[in-house]
């Protein structure tokens, strides 16, 4: 077997690349499709031997700030999240472009076009433009691996955080990856630089101007980046293909014998010189982006350009992920005749596992809710969101992490009774605590049900930052009254008592918390398998 090549998911290529590029730590909160980066580093013997810290953070903001602190201290740090996680970390992220870094700081962010496992399909490249930092968008697993070295070097040379953006398809697809010699970790080297890191207006103005002045240099660096290159071709039509859009263009070209010129872009700000050249050589330019038409819109400008085609004129769909078929048809190829899906094929949506404690929790909630005139249940993000589907149809909102508690509070303030919300243990640790404090301070009549399965189940069972008795201690500390801090065990045989507890607390005119506590059956089974394997 060819041992020099590893078969890695895109996410794992990022992880291996970061380890080999000499990171001293990774900070992350799980989120599909970014979770596997951190999990890989946690499993890596090499990372463990070289003391790379890798446990999960409470949320993306705490992760980002810790990574910034590590970079402040002179070491290389990696921070990983899914696209919506960057909303949570945005304050730290945008401001870190103003302070800049010392050791290299790379933000690996994974977007989810087509929303396979997400609330939206926002494009993190917009954040890159917003913060005015370099963005790398490799198009293959090997490029992802190589790009990590480049990203850290770039970050240290321009003293800015660098984004490595990928999307679901690349993150969750495997390919052979060849490794390079690894780089030693940076020594501890913290500098006093309050003029950069104390963002009082007088410093921030100077730093912001510096960031603006850096922009032409970033563009020049893109022009010589290995991630940007032109593919020879002929004919009046040219293509600018960003990120993995390039793969679909090359595949469509080969499949249909199309010879068009292609400019592959994998480093932003986009390389102006190469783009000018392509526009000069072609009558028509198709812009292929895996995500929002960020650069298509920019190229078109406010008054539009008849030369440009892409997501905004219908040549490609405005939303959803790219495919070879979509690109081929935008390039004028006739679609292949295909067999249709027979009518008898029904959808098979995901569901809560058989035996999951969330099922018993929803059964109890539904029973009590049926007695109420108003039966809205504010919910959050996690496996328990599947309670929105049949047979439960038990929850009525799921917006962003933490919003269950705060939306219930707002609705309670508006007069809605009962105001009930459901939130998982990991989500509570992520963003629920501050909202609960708001409710306590206002004595808002809400009942918070914390579904404590002792794990972050939806994303595959990562450690939760707060579960078990820690939850009671947090709630007590935030000011929840002892008499209204209850716990139940969501099991069939406890259904009646659970119903009684919920009924009492829904009726209470203040803040109550009911912790529905039972271990996730998946993690329980995994633990059992592991201890059985050890016992052998």
């Amino acid at each position, binding site marked *: 077997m060819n041992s020099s090549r590893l078969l890695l998911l895109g996410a794992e290529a990022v992880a291996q690349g970061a380890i080999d590029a000499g990171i001293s730590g990774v900070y992350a909160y799980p989120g599909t499709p970014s979770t596997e980066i951190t999990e890989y580093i946690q499993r890596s013997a090499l990372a463990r031997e070289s003391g790379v810290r890798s446990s999960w953070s409470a949320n993306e903001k705490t992760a980002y700030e810790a990574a910034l602190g590590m970079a402040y201290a002179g070491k290389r740090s990696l921070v990983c999240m899914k696209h919506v996680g960057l909303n949570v970390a945005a304050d730290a992220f945008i401001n870190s472009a103003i302070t800049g870094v010392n050791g290299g700081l790379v933000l690996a962010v994974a977007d989810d076009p087509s929303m396979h*496992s997400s609330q939206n399909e926002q494009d993190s490249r917009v954040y890159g433009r917003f913060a005015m930092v370099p963005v790398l968008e490799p198009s293959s697993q090997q490029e992802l691996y190589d790009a990590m070295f480049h990203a850290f070097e770039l970050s240290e040379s321009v003293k800015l955080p660098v984004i490595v953006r990928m999307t679901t398809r690349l993150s969750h697809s495997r390919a*052979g990856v060849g490794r390079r010699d690894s780089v030693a970790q940076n020594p501890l080297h913290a500098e006093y630089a309050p003029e950069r890191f104390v963002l009082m207006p007088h410093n921030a103005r100077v730093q912001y101007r510096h960031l603006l002045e850096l922009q032409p240099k970033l563009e020049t660096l893109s022009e010589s980046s290995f991630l940007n290159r032109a593919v020879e071709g002929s004919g009046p039509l040219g293509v600018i293909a960003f990120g993995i859009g390039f793969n679909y263009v090359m595949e469509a070209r080969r499949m249909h014998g199309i010879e068009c010129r292609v400019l592959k872009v994998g480093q932003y700000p986009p390389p102006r010189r190469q783009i000018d050249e392509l526009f000069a050589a072609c009558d028509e330019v198709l812009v292929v982006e895996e995500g929002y038409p960020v650069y298509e819109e920019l190229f078109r400008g406010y008054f539009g350009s008849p030369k440009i085609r892409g997501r905004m004129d219908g040549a490609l769909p405005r939303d959803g992920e790219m495919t070879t078929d979509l690109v081929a048809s935008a390039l004028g190829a006739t679609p292949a005749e*295909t067999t249709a899906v027979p009518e008898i094929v029904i959808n098979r949506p995901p569901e809560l596992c058989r035996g999951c404690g969330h099922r018993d929790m929803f059964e109890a909630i539904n029973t009590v809710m049926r007695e109420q005139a108003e039966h809205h249940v504010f919910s959050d993000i996690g496996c328990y969101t599947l309670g929105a589907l049949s047979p439960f149809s038990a929850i009525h909102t799921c917006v962003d992490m933490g919003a269950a508690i705060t939306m219930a509070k707002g609705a309670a303030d508006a007069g809605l009774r009962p105001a009930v919300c459901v939130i998982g243990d990991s989500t509570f640790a992520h963003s629920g605590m501050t909202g609960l404090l708001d409710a306590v301070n206002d004595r808002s009549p809400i009942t918070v049900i914390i579904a404590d399965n002792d794990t972050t189940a939806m994303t595959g069972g990562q450690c939760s930052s707060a579960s078990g008795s820690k939850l009671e201690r947090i709630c007590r500390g935030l000011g929840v009254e002892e008499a209204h801090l209850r716990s139940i065990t969501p099991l069939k045989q406890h259904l009646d008592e659970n119903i009684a507890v919920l009924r009492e607390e829904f009726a209470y005119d203040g803040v109550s918390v009911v912790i529905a506590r039972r271990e996730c059956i998946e993690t329980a089974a995994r633990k059992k398998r592991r201890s059985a394997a050890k016992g052998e």
Partner: protein
Amino acid sequence: MEKNIILAGVGGQGILSIAAVIDWAALDAGLVIRQAEVHGMSQRGGAVQSHLRISDRELFADLIAHGTADLILSVEPLESLRYLPWLAPEGHVVTSTDPFVNVQGYPPVERIIKALRSAVNPLLVPAEQLAREAGSVRASNMVMLGAAAPFTGIEPERLEAGIQALFGAKGAQIVDINIRAFRKGLTLSNANQTTS
């Protein structure tokens, strides 16, 4: 040599172990691989698929284009129908006949088979039965791999070596069961090819 393979099933049925064996064997044969899989929400009992591409030249896309799959390997009958638009005109469908019923309105298996037959000439595999004969129902995915082996472009011996490599850590008995399961699938497939 270039093969586009769609692996289909329901979250939790183990199509990723099938992919892992093919990946291992393809890497061993020095081939280029792209294998896109589904993680996240759908893994909870939803429809899942993996696009697996192997080739002796550079591959670009992680996804298979419509009408270009050489093989649909499905561990569940209804799921074999879901990906028909990807099948190439000369492509093969190899599917288990054991339904995984976790939704309302699941059609009778006979209707599924009929729909499949009206589109292609499928290889139908009683995977659970053969796996049980091999020593464990849990090896039914290896039965399916065996049945599909002749369409993967990879020699069966190399796939067996992959099973050995991937299940080795679980002990010799598990390896044996899975190899036996693989061979049962392969035998069925070979017999079918000579008779049809």
